[in-house]
């Protein structure tokens, strides 16, 4: 199932995540950036109380403090390396992206925590996402100067 929501790092695939997460809110409290929000009843009965990330408002800075606090294992507690996170994948909307429209901009490239790996600049100085390296933290989506953002994380649900 394609997730509607970006989940914290280490989250199980969406269906399994919804079954395992006990909606306790410990990850929400563990997040020092206030990145992790709590879905409410208005988002749907099945997702109510689950942790969600709205990367455009505030992305995940990959501090990795939330996976180890999860009491039910809905977030893989053993996940420590930020490179192994797979919350989703950034997708660049080339028609909106300044660099792809021949205006110089490398905001996403500059702020990507996996510097020069998840987002690379091609030989015409346009950002390209490496699907295999991108962890889906959403920092690129957060810093994109275009409104709405020309790069957005597609929730992947692979942890």
């Amino acid at each position, binding site marked *: 199932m394609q997730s509607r929501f970006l989940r914290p790092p280490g989250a199980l695939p969406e269906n399994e995540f919804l*079954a395992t997460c006990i909606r306790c*809110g*410990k990850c929400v409290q563990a*997040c020092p950036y206030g990145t992790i929000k*709590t879905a409410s*009843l208005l988002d749907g009965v099945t997702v*109510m*109380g689950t942790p969600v990330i709205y990367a455009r408002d505030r992305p995940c800075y990959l501090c990795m403090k939330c996976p180890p606090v999860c*009491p039910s294992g809905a977030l893989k507690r053993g996940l420590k390396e930020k490179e192994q996170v797979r919350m989703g994948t950034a997708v660049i909307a080339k028609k909106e992206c300044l660099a792809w429209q021949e205006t110089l901009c490398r905001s996403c490239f500059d702020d990507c925590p996996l510097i020069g790996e998840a987002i690379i600049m091609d030989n015409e100085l346009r950002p390209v996402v490496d699907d295999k390296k991108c962890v889906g933290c959403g920092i690129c989506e957060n810093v994109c100067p275009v409104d709405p953002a020309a790069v957005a994380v597609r929730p992947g649900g692979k942890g």
Partner: protein
Amino acid sequence: MRLKRLRTAAQIGTICLVILVPLANKKGFTFITGTLYSLAVGPVWITDPLIGVQTVLTTARLDAVLLLSLLIPVFLAFALGRVFCGWMCPQNTISEWADRVAAKLGITRLFRPQPRALPRTIVLAAVLTATPLVGFPLASLLSAPGLISAQAGKYVVEGVVGLEAGLIGLIVVVEFFLVRRAWCNYLCPVGGFLGLFRLKGTLKVVFAEDAEHVCGKCRACVDACGLGLDPLGGNLYPLCHNCGDCVGVCEALKERGKPLSFRF
């Protein structure tokens, strides 16, 4: 009334915990984290038994960390009964205080059934049966203490609460006008589940008269019971959550030889 003061302190303490933990976490103090669904005090993890069991049902997996975290509350329930409900649960505190206000205002409820354990047992059975079928943790949605503390956390982080907080308001309104103490007595799956952990030696309120312990038939204990139970009639469990109010007033009225007492 020492018992009552102790209990009020525990109740207010729990409410403070629910509010201060997310605030402290936000400031970077993380010795205690979590909510009344699942709490971590340093390295000690404590999870509501119903929430843990429901997760086993939805995932068909036994997670060692989760199961270990159920030990303390299960042990507590076996030893002291449902003291979580009577001494800590913020929903019980809210309902109890609202009930006192209702009593002061002289409100008579539309329905006045005799408290019985059966409806709550049926609700619990329905929740546990439906949980693996729907595939998501139904009990988490219906845990009033969990909702209250998780919503307190949400408020601290986001400055808003979810619509689901309305359940708490709904409970209060229903209990105020329709059925006295409807949630705790007839519906709450968390309390229903905790009530299952009962042995012969579990702490209980005992009414026992003999030559030195004589009941003055003042019925102060009946009036004192916040759940509307009758400590003189016996057969209190599993509805009684060992709050001790009846034992407390009995003590207050008869310095020596009170017939109501806590016993293992």
